[in-house]
């Protein structure tokens, strides 16, 4: 079939409005091949001048449309050597002056083939394109090229591909947008880059990995965006677990970044960086809502020394009794703590992870033997341990009536081993300060960081302010317990995403250890057990091969020059690697199981405010009175449930009848938030009134 006929046949794949933008060239030295071809870019139309790395175009072989992505651009001139140009200007007074003629230069792009579409549906063509016109690809062609026709699951948009041709409305007219300075500029064609949910969340493949320099690669921002996309598009019940490791980064994910213009102005006035119109457009193009995470739950241990204790009993009851201000998190503003929950362990839980809490040199067989003895003797708490040690020391310090000597062993454990264990275990209260309680811990009805998940729940474990021991302990323990839960099919949802940053640290290549083994196990078997690992790291080359190798989807942001030369990146072309050295924030390169060639794409700001911004706005210590606090909580709950919200006067009236203290108000609202079920016959306001009456809190109680 000749080129005009092919153009007609495949007109849905090519941008005929823009027209040809170049021509395929083949030569003896550079033939077109099944997977790569070259074309020269035309000087006109204007859209041809926009051609750049990462754009997607369409050429034709005899009977097929060949869709490719632009890789290496090279500008060719007819100079044999640079000296020729020097000689051209020799004798000229001003080398800035143009010569009588400009040497012709052409821009030739190497194009890597993404897909082909044959005239017949049952033929898969791999024939290279012939010399002929090249067109920009339409969104249909890009979807085809990105393998969307082969999806077995749901399409999850993760990036937005930007081509060099104009976006057009239904009438084919070019779309323009207003810039901040009031000028008008062309909007480029954007096409969502999707991934197949069956290959992101399992069961066909799974996991995703982000690589890039800290602060430049926007790994966490994009991971949040992808989680938001999964929450919006996945037909399965799904939840996610993240660890907040820096400041307030992940503590305000329930605060919308995309707000009304008035609210945006107010926020911007407080120095908050707001999304641009282009960010909104991107959400629109991806058919997504920029809604924040409605079901955010934050878990944090106590501040060291702030953990509660009960000297008169065995147990600490946390349910409804914990003080948010004592938690080691930045989200402590009074009216913003309804989604914040404590983490508190007893001694027995800490001793499950000896490699995390004790130095390697201390961990010999004798030490393990004593720990085992403690377990057998059911020593669960620090208090219990102290009592047991008093008992042991009494025994060891008692002289034998006959020999007059003190025993050297207790239950076959040598005195020195016991003394060493005593020393190390007593020190745990400092080492694990804020996490380790002296008593047994009763969470009651409170959610737990390693408990079952709710659908669309985003769980954040805040370890930002903890010491390294507590951080590693919490990450390891939480993931391991959730993994154990997955093995028992007790996740509570169909899919759980676990986001682990700093994989260099937790799953180093060639390393060994509890979490590394768990992460390798999750990477290998997770997709079958519905646990998906979203991992991120600065140095992909330093992460365990199995962890990165099992990720069916990989994203690359800005990579450092030392890192890019490692073998982990050798599958990328030279120009792609060079591009990764300078890729801007908000742009990522994606490799996915369905896409033969990596694709660059952009993504909008996440749907929630940046942690540092939100902390400025919501984290400030603004003190509301009890009425105001109760009103705000009930208002938010009512809006969330889309039912009538109470008025301030109503709240004041009811509270006036009960005369509650601030602490009682907090306790009451915690109970209401915890026990109110969305979809209940009662509105939050009714439920609140019911609860306050039933529980007889305050003066009338």
């Amino acid at each position: 079939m000749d080129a005009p006929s092919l153009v007609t046949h495949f007109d849905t794949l090519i941008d005929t409005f823009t027209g040809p933008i170049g021509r395929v060239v083949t030569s003896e030295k550079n033939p077109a091949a099944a997977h790569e071809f070259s074309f020269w870019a035309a000087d006109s139309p204007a859209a041809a001048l926009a051609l750049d790395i990462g754009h997607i175009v369409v050429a034709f072989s005899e009977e097929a449309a060949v869709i490719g992505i632009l890789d290496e651009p090279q500008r060719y001139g007819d100079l044999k050597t640079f000296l020729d140009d020097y000689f051209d200007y020799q004798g000229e007074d001003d080398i800035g002056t143009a010569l009588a003629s400009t040497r012709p230069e052409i821009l030739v792009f190497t194009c890597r083939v993404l897909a082909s579409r044959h005239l017949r549906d049952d033929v898969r063509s791999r024939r290279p394109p012939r010399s002929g016109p090249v067109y920009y690809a339409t969104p249909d062609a890009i979807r085809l090229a990105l393998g969307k026709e082969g999806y077995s699951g749901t399409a999850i948009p993760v990036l937005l591909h930007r081509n060099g041709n104009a976006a057009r409305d239904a009438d084919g007219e070019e779309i323009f947008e207003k810039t901040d300075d009031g000028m008008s500029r062309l909007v480029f064609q954007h096409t969502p880059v999707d991934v197949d949910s069956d290959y992101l969340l399992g069961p066909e493949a799974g996991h995703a990995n982000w690589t890039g320099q800290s602060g430049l690669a926007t790994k966490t921002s994009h991971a949040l965006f992808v989680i938001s996309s999964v929450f919006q598009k996945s037909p399965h019940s799904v939840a996610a677990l993240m660890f907040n490791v820096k400041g307030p980064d992940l503590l305000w994910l329930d605060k919308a970044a995309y707000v009304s213009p008035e609210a945006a102005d107010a926020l911007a006035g407080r120095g908050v960086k707001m999304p641009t119109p282009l960010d909104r457009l991107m959400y629109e193009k991806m058919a997504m809502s920029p809604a924040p995470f409605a079901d955010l739950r934050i878990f944090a241990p106590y501040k060291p020394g702030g953990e509660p204790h009960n000297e008169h009993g065995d147990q600490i009851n946390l349910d409804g009794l914990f003080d948010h201000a004592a938690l080691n998190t930045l989200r402590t503003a009074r009216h913003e703590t309804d989604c914040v929950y404590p983490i508190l362990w007893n001694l027995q839980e800490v001793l499950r992870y000896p490699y995390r809490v004790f130095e390697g040199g201390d961990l010999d067989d004798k030490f393990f033997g004593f720990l085992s003895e403690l377990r057998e003797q059911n020593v669960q708490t620090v208090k219990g341990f102290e009592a047991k040690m008093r008992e042991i020391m009494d025994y060891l310090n008692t002289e034998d009536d006959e020999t007059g000597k003190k025993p050297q062993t207790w239950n076959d454990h040598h005195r020195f081993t016991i003394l060493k264990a005593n020393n190390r275990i007593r020190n745990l209260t400092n080492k694990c300060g804020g996490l380790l309680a002296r008593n047994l811990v009763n969470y009651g009805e409170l959610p737990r960081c390693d408990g079952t998940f709710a659908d669309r729940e985003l769980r954040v474990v805040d370890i930002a302010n903890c010491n390294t021991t507590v951080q590693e302990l919490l990450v390891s323990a939480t993931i391991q317990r959730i993994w154990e839960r997955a093995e028992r099919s007790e996740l509570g949802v169909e899919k759980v995403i676990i986001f682990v940053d700093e994989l260099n640290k937790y799953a180093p290549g060639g390393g060994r250890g509890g979490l590394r083994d768990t992460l390798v196990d999750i990477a290998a078997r997770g997709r079958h057990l519905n646990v998906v690992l979203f991992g991120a790291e600065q140095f992909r080359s330093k992460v365990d091969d199995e962890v990165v190798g099992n990720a069916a989807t990989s994203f690359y942001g800005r990579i450092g020059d030392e890192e890019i030369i490692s073998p982990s990146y050798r599958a990328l072309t030279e120009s792609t690697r060079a591009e990764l050295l300078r890729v801007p924030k908000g742009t990522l390169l994606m490799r996915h199981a369905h896409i033969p060639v990596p694709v660059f794409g952009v993504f909008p700001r996440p749907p929630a405010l940046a942690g540092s911004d939100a902390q400025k706005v919501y984290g400030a210590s603004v003190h509301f009175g009890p009425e105001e606090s109760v009103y705000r909580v009930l208002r938010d709950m009512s809006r969330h449930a889309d039912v009538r919200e109470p008025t301030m006067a109503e709240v004041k009236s009811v509270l006036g009848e009960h005369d509650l203290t601030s602490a009682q108000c907090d306790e009451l609202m915690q109970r209401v938030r915890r026990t109110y079920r969305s979809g209940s016959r009662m509105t939050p306001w009714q439920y609140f009134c019911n609860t306050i009456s039933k529980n007889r809190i305050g003066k009338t109680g």
Partner: protein
Amino acid sequence: MSVQNNTLTLGGRLTTALASLQASGLPFVATPAAVRLEHDLVSFDGDDARERGGPSITHLEGAHLSIIPIIPALPADTTWRVRYFLDGVQRTLPIGWCGMNALALVVVVAGVIERRPQDGVFRSVPGMTHIASSIIIASAANDTHTDDLYDAFTRTGLDVQTADNPTTGSLHDGDFIALQSRIRPVVSTVREACEYEALKAWIERTDGSEGWLVMDGSLSRADIGNAMGLIKRHSRFDLTNTEMTDLLHMPVGHRSSAFQRAVSGGLRPITWYLRLHEATGADPLFGLARIEAPSQTANPRDYDTLSHLIFAERTPRATNDDRWPTLLYPIHIAERILKVKLERALLGVPAALRRYLREVA
């Protein structure tokens, strides 16, 4: 029987003609492997070899040839600029022989390229490219196959030219080399005609105000408005010994005074020499070009202006071409553009000859 079909390509027509020859039983022998005649017949002639006119010249700036420096800047009031360039390329393939008939196919592509004023980009001007092809039959007198050969090619719509001009050399019996030599002047004629067609198209489409045209080679007429000829290689000088010595000593950035050669029935264009590149230590003709200008440019100011315009074209240099000292870069580009069109025009020709050879065998 006429098999003329206007949709056929050159290769297609040749195939049809060869099939006809085969059917007629003529002892035609195809020579697809023969070296093209531009290689065999490469002349020692210059670009002015086909110039007519006697040795008598008239000096236009004094009684004798003088050496004048090129003006450093264009006159402030001039709007003259060089914008168009005309060149032609050819391929002459000896397609075979039949008795004492040597046959060649010549394909010529001539065209005008434009240097766009806004960005200096070169492009072919639409409608100003002309392609000519001819079968040339050089025959010994009274050869019995000549007419049949002529008919066979003519019937397919191919232009056929005979090479019977005895002035190109005496022909004695069995002188096949002389037969081949007779082809060359015909090729020149075809090329001249083709270039003239391109020039004619330029004349018809422009009124001269858009800029000057520089043609590679001699101007065919003296009255073509705003067109210059540029002769890169020289085969004749009509100067005195003293004048010639002065010319050979002419430094770079200088021109000779203008002169005009008389021909029967009129005058040749006004002409002068121009040194484009430093020749110290090199051949004395190195970088020495000759400019031809139409006869209406009849004053030294015009010669100065045109010399300045041509001298400005010495850079960038056409470094990929051995003729670079006198080859203007835009002419070099024009040649490259036209050569691609020439190759396209020749598609199928070698294949037709090889096919014929196989089938006859």
